[in-house]
């Protein structure tokens, strides 16, 4: 059977087009189903409260809930304050985490100290203590040092939360850099800082981006410490969302709108950098 194709075939030998298409459709089905809860929430956020409660669409779509939720009313926290707080806390803590993690990863990967395995294990083991257990001593000290309700205390805590993971991941990405490149730089007399900048970082960049993104995700979404250690003025986005859970009745649409607003930054960041994150993960998350 000779068929003249001008563009070249993508099917493998013996692959039926229907099978390949079928797999593609299955993937689409799975993806759409998986995202359904989120899609439904987005849909709900554009409804009026009556429609939302009754699962109908009599009154059409509106942006009103979004504006409702963005303006402070008594009893709920202000969006602007919460957003700024979250932004500051997340950015500062992530930057500091990366600044601390890079040299640590260098020490563990490129010029390994003797007990590197133990050090790594130690780092991970700090995550075994449930957050809830350490809250009380932390609260006591935070109160003592007047840090309750400030951004500082959250920054400090988030750094501690994310640092182990950051060190672990950054180290494994550094290990991906071929030894010969570093040795060549050494021979050329490159200083440590320049080595980092011109040889190591370009190769490990996707991995470092992935690590930073993960830190941002965890810091932005963190709920417990923020809840326990804050007053209204210091609250972050997760608290802002739950503040919209009103006991006076189910304001589903408003809550949906609030949820979407709160999650949007991280979701967009995740979407934008996912290619890099996957490349980063496939480079060295294994080790």
């Amino acid at each position, binding site marked *: 059977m000779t068929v003249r194709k001008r563009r070249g075939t*993508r099917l493998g030998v013996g692959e039926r087009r229907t099978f*390949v298409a079928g*797999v*593609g459709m299955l*993937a*689409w089905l799975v*993806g759409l189903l*998986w*995202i359904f*809860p*989120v899609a439904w*929430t987005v849909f*709900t956020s554009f409804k009026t409260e009556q429609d*939302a*409660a009754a*699962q109908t669409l009599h009154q059409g779509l509106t942006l009103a809930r979004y504006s409702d939720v963005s303006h402070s009313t008594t009893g709920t926290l202000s969006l602007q304050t919460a957003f700024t707080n979250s932004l500051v806390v997340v950015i500062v803590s992530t930057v500091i985490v990366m600044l*601390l*993690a890079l*040299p*640590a990863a260098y*020490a563990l990967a490129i010029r390994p*100290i003797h007990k590197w*395995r133990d050090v790594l*294990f130690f*780092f991970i*083991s700090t*995550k*075994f*203590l*449930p*957050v*809830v*257990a*350490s*809250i*009380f*001593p*932390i609260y006591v000290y935070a109160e003592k040092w007047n840090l309750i309700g400030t951004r500082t205390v959250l920054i400090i805590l988030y750094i*501690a939360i994310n*640092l182990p993971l950051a060190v672990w991941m950054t180290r494994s990405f550094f290990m991906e850099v071929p030894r010969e490149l570093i040795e060549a730089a050494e021979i050329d007399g490159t200083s440590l800082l320049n080595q980092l900048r011109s040889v190591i970082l370009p190769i490990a960049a996707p991995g470092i981006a992935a690590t930073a993104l993960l830190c941002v*995700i965890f810091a*932005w*979404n963190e*709920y417990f410490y923020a809840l*326990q250690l804050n007053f209204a003025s210091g609250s972050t986005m*997760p608290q802002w*969302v*739950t503040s919209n859970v009103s006991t006076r009745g189910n304001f*589903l649409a408003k809550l949906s709108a609030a949820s979407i607003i709160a*999650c949007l930054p*991280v*979701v967009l960041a*995740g*979407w934008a950098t*996912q290619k890099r*994150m*996957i490349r980063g993960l496939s480079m060295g*998350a*294994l*080790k």
Partner: protein
Amino acid sequence: MLPALLYVVAITQLPFLVSIYYSLTNLKDKTQSLTPEPTKFVGFQNYRQIFSDPFFREAMWTSVKMTVLAVLLSLIIGTAFALLLDRKFFGQGIIRTLLITPFLLMPVVAALIWKQQMFSSLFGVLNKALNFLGLNSIAFISDHPLASIVTVLVWQWTPFMMLIILAGLQSQPSDILEAANVDGASGVGIFRQLTLPHLRPYLELGALLGSIFIVQAFDAIDVMTGGGPGSTNVPYFVYQESIGGGFRYGSASAYAIVVVIFSIVIATFALRLLSSLFKDEERG
């Protein structure tokens, strides 16, 4: 690298040590608890109580169930998704983006979404669908608290596992798969004999990291069930004991310490398994 080390030590170990100290006392918040006592050192009394406390045992058991179920399910489903996404098809990038999204959401939001939009007896989509098919509504959260929480956890963590496994799939050299093809192996055969062994370190990594995070699950429980029977895991239990209402900080700390020791023991075993990873690394 010293700064990082010092910092982590300070921030994480101090509370740890202080918790140990507290666990050895009968610390109670005098203003809140019903039976105020002056704080005094009571030695290992708190620890002895632990093992006879049925609530704690139940919390431990729930933790185990919850963690194992969530980790296993998200691993299996994550692997299935990774296999699906491993070949090129129209819109592959879009689907991958959609699948990742639950992981990016705030745990409280995820829990809220499922609680109100999906599971709710009054408004929930699932129940609406069931009714539409002529079946009775199911009160998911009140009747099946553990399953509901596990569902949310799996929904959020499957993308994480999927990404790790996807990385593993893509790191398998293609000429080995071609050789297996030429040698007569079927698709299933190739997966079972070659791909799965290749994925083992990735699966282990996913399980390890996933367990570390999932065992600490808190937000979903707080939002969905408030710690009702059958859905309280250890972190939530400790929370209830301490600032969540019990204010028995001493015993709460004791519980926590026990859990940490437990985790360290388990993790050491797990890392022995993973040490083969390290061994390969040292060679290469």
